[in-house]
């Protein structure tokens, strides 16, 4: 009997963290203890408020941490606004996991370079957690992350923790003009900070996610450092509805971002029609 992929799991909001203006993280627990929900870093889910609709976000936690999953979203449209109005213990719908994950097993022994900005950190946090939870399996870990202002940085507490770790190089920045009086870290756009701290491409993988402009500006720098296009990974976002490659909204050429992605190498992205 085939699974009905349109019937959501029911998940309870166990915790709410306000990350930044309009940005929240929800920790979710399944109400059905027999729900055997397993996922891999990079996969996404459809989070639904019954009566309003569903919205697509990646799963921002890692399968290495059991018992819950987390999503981080910015309140912008009808569904996310309704989600933002939810309270602890409310039940929302969740469908998934969908899509292809990051091939983390293929990266054992390599250096990992994360490049992201603003609300692009949540899709990468699942990988960061996954990597840090098995730290000994990987080489150097570098994270380049920035936001428009200090207030817009998400996962502020975790950023502090990563900063304190000596097995993680965290390059944190805010856009010029976004710094506060007591900001002690970098000021400048993320690509500028990468230029000032070029990562080595030897035996390394780069993962870039976030605003299209960031991706566009970072790619030439990575190329300069010697990263081949198939060693750069990204996660694409497109308008989605079904999540399973049927409704047609997320197609880029022949590719369904939901089922053939959302994780792609930059080489795969270049082969698509540039309509995303």
């Amino acid at each position: 009997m085939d699974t009905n992929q349109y019937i959501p799991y029911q998940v309870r909001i166990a915790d709410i963290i306000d990350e930044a203006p309009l940005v929240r993280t929800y920790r979710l627990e399944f109400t059905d203890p027999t729900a055997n929900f397993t996922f891999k870093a990079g996969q996404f889910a459809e989070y639904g408020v019954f009566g309003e609709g569903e919205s697509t976000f990646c799963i921002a936690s890692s399968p290495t941490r059991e018992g819950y999953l987390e999503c981080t979203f910015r309140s912008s449209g009808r569904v996310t606004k309704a989600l933002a109005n939810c309270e602890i213990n409310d039940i929302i719908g969740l469908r998934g996991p969908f899509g292809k994950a990051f091939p983390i097993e293929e990266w054992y022994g390599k250096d990992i370079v994360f490049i992201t900005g603003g609300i692009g950190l949540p899709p990468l946090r699942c990988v960061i957690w996954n990597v840090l939870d098995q730290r000994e399996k990987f080489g150097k870990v570098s994270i380049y992350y920035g936001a428009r202002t200090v207030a817009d940085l998400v996962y502020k507490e975790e950023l502090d923790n990563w900063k304190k770790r000596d097995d993680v190089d965290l390059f944190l920045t805010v856009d010029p003009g976004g710094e506060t009086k007591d900001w002690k870290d970098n000021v400048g756009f993320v690509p500028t900070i990468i230029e000032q701290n070029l990562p080595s491409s030897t035996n390394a993988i780069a993962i870039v996610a976030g605003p299209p402009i960031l991706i566009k500006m970072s790619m030439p720098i990575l190329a300069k450092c010697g990263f081949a296009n198939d060693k750069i990974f990204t996660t694409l976002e497109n308008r989605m509805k079904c999540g399973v490659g049927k409704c047609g909204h997320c197609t880029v050429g022949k590719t369904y971002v939901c089922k053939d992605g959302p994780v792609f190498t930059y080489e795969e992205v270049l082969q698509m029609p540039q309509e995303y």
Partner: protein
Amino acid sequence: MQDKAAELLKNGTVNLLIGFSEDLGKRPVPCFIETAEEANILVFNQECKNNLSVYLHKKEVKDAVKIGLVSNIATLRSVMQLLSENQLWSLTITYLTVNTAGELVVLSSAEELEAYVQANFPTCRAEDKEMLDKLNAMTRAERWAYWKDQLSECVKCYACRAVCPMCYCTVCTTECNQPQWIKTSAETSGNFEYHTMRAMHLGGRCINCGECGRICPAGIPVHLLTAQMNLEIEQEFGGKTGWSLKSEYAMNSFKPGDKENFIK
């Protein structure tokens, strides 16, 4: 018409001419020509019913600025209505039409257009009048049943909205989801919501070209809804749509002498 079109394109009066050509099935279809050499594909006859003024809202047409528009009388009335609603200010349009004597008429200014339209103002099409009379003779219950039956066929393709020159909102009410004013799914109640909303939005603006009903893929005579709406507005408030360069839009203007006999 072909010669005139070629001339206008050649001398730069017009950058883009919107007219009709014939397809494989000998049906007149909208065509867009930019050079004098292409002018020989143009046709014009009684079957040229598409209201080409709707293309004036298209970005590619707006970018061309100097437009030639092959028009039947309905198209010209639509343009009048659009001009009165300040929608065509960025365009310079030359109109090519054919009068009842079969002669080519070229109109180059809004004033020429207004004079021509007022001199050649059409009456309600006979087949529409017949249908409207039939519907108005029905009891309310019969009319409700008629439209319920018709609108159950609607698939919400929005072709009616797409061909209407008056439906130029960049975000239509149906595309708003905060709140979802109109259901998107094609169930009868949602279809009613959509079509009555559209008739309301076109009240005092529709010039009854009838295109919405003619092209409906489900064969629903939706043009009758807007036609009836406009007949009633004309009766209650006077004024004609697509008549004057000055907007006398019944639904958003108020005069102290307006009748209020509907308040009972």
